[in-house]
């Protein structure tokens, strides 16, 4: 398969190049896109390399930190501003993939990475996300890694990112450049649930470029924890992960932010559990009650019923770890 390769040098240029050809895509680190091309899952006619766009900076201005979409996962995880203000993000990034991959992967690419569902990856199998209308292979198939929240009869895939779970918990926003200029949306509104359009992972519109992620400065530094449960100690996607960020007064939780990974088509924010925990003592009982609230509406399939047990355990455990921190 032949494809064209071009390099963009400005964000505006990248956007207009993308607009010109419907089969064009951006390539950043390439750690996901190139795999998908090799497997025949996607076959773009034109690759627009955005790696030289000036979007790698991480800066603090006023009460927010802005991270360029091309900042590398490794660079973000090690950046002093991130370590100081958002240790949770650093933990989550370091729990993802491997150092080699993080050295290539970008923030924008991480947000845009596709699901790791086997049926999506194998072009011989049915998959509504890859080929709408062919059916969901996972629904009656091997669905151990799959969603327990927010799935539809068309798709039970999960979003595989760790970074995005932390960003969802940290009330981040996404800055997007389109032909008509910039727009900003909440990070939690960026990814979608599958519904009837599982082929759409997120709300980025055709022709748009992610330029930045913004995170408001907060006071969660002392009580942040990213728990990732996986099949081996490193270099594996989450069975379940939990990002927990808290503000504490003594043993009392004054503010809680919680999000889960490995359970839904998007990073799964636990707003009811957060509301419940506000003003509560940090006790095992309260953690378990919060976890139980978070699990309402969960639905398992043949091979992932363990998540109904693992997910609440993980929430309670992450809360325990976050609150016990100095």
């Amino acid at each position: 398969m032949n494809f064209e390769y071009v390099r963009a040098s400005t964000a505006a240029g990248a956007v207009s190049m993308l607009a010109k050809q419907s089969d064009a895509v951006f390539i950043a680190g390439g750690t996901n896109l190139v795999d998908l091309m090799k497997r025949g899952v996607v076959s773009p006619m034109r690759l627009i390399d955005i790696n030289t766009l000036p979007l790698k900076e991480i800066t603090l201005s006023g009460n927010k930190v802005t991270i360029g979409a091309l900042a590398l996962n490794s660079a973000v995880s090690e950046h002093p501003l991130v370590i100081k203000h958002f240790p949770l993000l650093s933990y989550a990034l370091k729990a993802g993939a491997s150092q080699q991959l993080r050295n290539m992967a970008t923030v924008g690419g991480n947000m845009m990475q596709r699901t790791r569902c086997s049926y999506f990856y194998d072009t011989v199998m049915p998959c509504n996300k890859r080929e709408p209308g062919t059916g969901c292979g996972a629904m009656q198939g091997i669905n151990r890694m799959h969603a327990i929240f927010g799935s539809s009869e068309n798709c039970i895939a999960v979003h595989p990112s760790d970074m995005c779970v932390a960003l969802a918990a940290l009330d981040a926003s996404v800055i997007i450049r389109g032909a008509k200029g910039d727009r900003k949306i909440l990070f939690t509104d960026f990814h979608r649930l599958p519904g009837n359009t599982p082929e759409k992972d997120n709300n980025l519109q055709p022709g748009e470029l992610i330029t930045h992620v913004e995170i408001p400065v907060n006071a969660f530094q002392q009580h942040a924890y990213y728990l990732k449960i996986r099949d081996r100690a490193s270099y594996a996607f989450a069975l379940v992960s939990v990002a927990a960020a808290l503000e504490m007064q003594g043993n009392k939780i004054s503010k809680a932010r919680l999000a889960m990974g490995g359970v839904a088509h998007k990073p799964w924010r636990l707003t009811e559990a957060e509301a419940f925990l506000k003003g509560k003592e940090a006790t095992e009982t309260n953690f378990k009650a919060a976890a139980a609230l978070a699990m309402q509406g969960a639905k398992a399939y043949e091979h992932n019923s363990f998540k109904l047990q693992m997910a609440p355990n993980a929430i309670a455990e992450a809360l325990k770890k976050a609150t016990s921190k100095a």
Partner: protein
Amino acid sequence: MEKQFFFDADTPDPDRVDGRAKVTGSARYFAEYTLPDMTYGVLVTSPVTKGRIKALDTKAAEKAPGVIAVLSHLNKPSVPGYEAPPAEGRGPGMRIFYTDKIYFNGQPVALVVADSFERATYAATLVRAQYEKEEFRTDFDANLDKAVAPRAPGAAEYKRGNIDAYKNAEVQLESEYFIPTEMHNPMELHGILAHWESPEKVIMYAKTQGVKATQQTVTNLFKLQAQNVQVFSEFVGGAFGIALRTWPHEVATVMAAKMVGKPVKLVLTREQMFTMVGYRPQAKQKLGMGATKAGILTGITHEAIGQTATYDEFTEGIVNMTKFMYACPNVNTRYKVLPLDVCVPIWMRGPGEATGAFALESAMDEMAYRLGIDPVEFRIRNYAETDPQRNQPFSSKYVKEAYQMGADKIGWSKRNPVPGSMKNGDWQVGYGMSTGVFTAGRGGATVRAVISDDGMLLLQSAVSDIGPGTGTAMVKIASDLMGMPFEKIRFELGNSSLPPAPSQGGSSTLSTVGSAVNDACLALQEQLAILAGQKTFAGKTKQDIVFSNGRIGLKNEPASAIGYAELLRQNNTPAVEVTKDSRQGEAARKYSIYSFSIHFVEVNVHPATGVVKVTKIVSVGDAGTIVSAKTAASQMIGGAVGGIGMALTEEAIMDHRFGRYVNHNFADYHVPVHADVPHVESLFINKPDPIINPMGAKGMGEIALIGFSAAVANAVFHATGKRIRSLPITPDKILQTKAV
């Protein structure tokens, strides 16, 4: 000249002779060879699990840029050997491109040859095939009732004493165990580079555990003269058994090279590594065990069903260990195979014994807890001093010492034996142990030894080295015998034109080829003594002569010593060459010759997340003389890593609606990573076996893995009170299993 055991722990241990080449990248693996005019092959595989190819349209592929040929059952060159009847006890085998039949999903249906790998890869996507699908069976669990007795002679049943005697025992146990399909997944992908230098002569750069075996297979299939079939395989990037047979895609490449008249190189993709080069077959086992209250075994029944293919039978020794490991008067085993529409399995490190040891050694642990006896003590109470299966002595067995050594090292006696009683913060702590055993074999091999007047000793044998450090061990043997420094000795292997040696498998290379090195060195010594006798040692007998520091001399007369090179020069002899064939003698048949291993592990289990971490490993090898301490320790470490994979992470998962694996890549098929592996403490008994061979050394590649998974499962039980009988022990299983 009778050789005493020469190994001396004080002689220095060589660094790996090929270590520098490997870490600097100068070691060349088959895929790194290029030949003039070389072309590239890429396979098209069947997305259908069973049926036949109705139509194959290769026109678009043939017209694609750079494509030279598309090979399939429609246009293949004739392979005379495909007409021969199959070997006894096996199915017809997979004769690639022979007919339109599909035996399994992922089977090659065409081979595209192009002038570049990329062009061949692209053209392969243009081949269009239509299939007539048939109903198929891939689901092992759902078809257990279709298991049959294997055709392989003697494999089906074994009995000593009474059948199912455990059912009358004071204390009884009946448990079922499952291990999933496990993929070898060596780092190096499989494949081959083949080139016909003339219509009668083919050369191959291969990934093979036996250059002679590959030569033999191709010789037979293409009806050639063996000396016109040359196979090179100097370096192999891991194999674990995957390269113990010549696979259909290798034959296809040889066919393609013949067809296009140019060299063809084919390297599988990682995904194809899951479908066409075998695997450790999944197996279901049932252990019935009976003992007296005092902890004396009275009966063991071991039943196993292993997966095989419909088109070829594969059997392995799943129930073997049970027949002789413990001094139990009544033992019976039943072994069946379940033919499915899948690729045929192949031995994977520790082959069937590793599967069987998981069941037997888990059951031993279960019984020990049931009896309230320490698991080590329970094994010692049932210790087999002689082989109860063959009723003859073991050649050597130091397993009691090994139990002690391992137990001391890990602090076994300091643990609280009550399950679920030990903690490390939030983590539950557990200790487990197990035993492993494998036949210590010795076949026949030939080694040529040439010592030249530049002072170099060259040893040659057509063995392969898939990584254990064969060259290093051989150099060490020769160095000790000849009294020469390592750097003056070179061991050449991986070339079918060298003197014959068997395939590297079944932990027998050191024993087999090492013996031939030993014998060749002794023959060389005799030649040197004759040479020396002509001038220097007139009238002396062999017993008076010593070989050390690169010199031959008279005992207690250092002044008489003369360097080998000088001796040759004095005699105007540029080189002395000997070739020795060496094989096991009849006398050894009176002994049962096995290598043993004991594994102790400590695990931490997190009760809320279900995560299991192996935190300590002590493996003790009872494998006779340890010839090369460094490479032996590496074997034990590698076995422990493979064992962690088997116990905790590895499982090839198939969707039986399609007959396709869903985790055929390194992201989803989890081999252990560094973070999963603690420091591995490997200890050796290091006492020579008096029977097996002149070095007293027994093989140890397999025992490093055999039994390991049971030690982990047993430790998980001790940590949690949860008995998990189905591997791998993933976090979900920890959460979903109840403590007993």
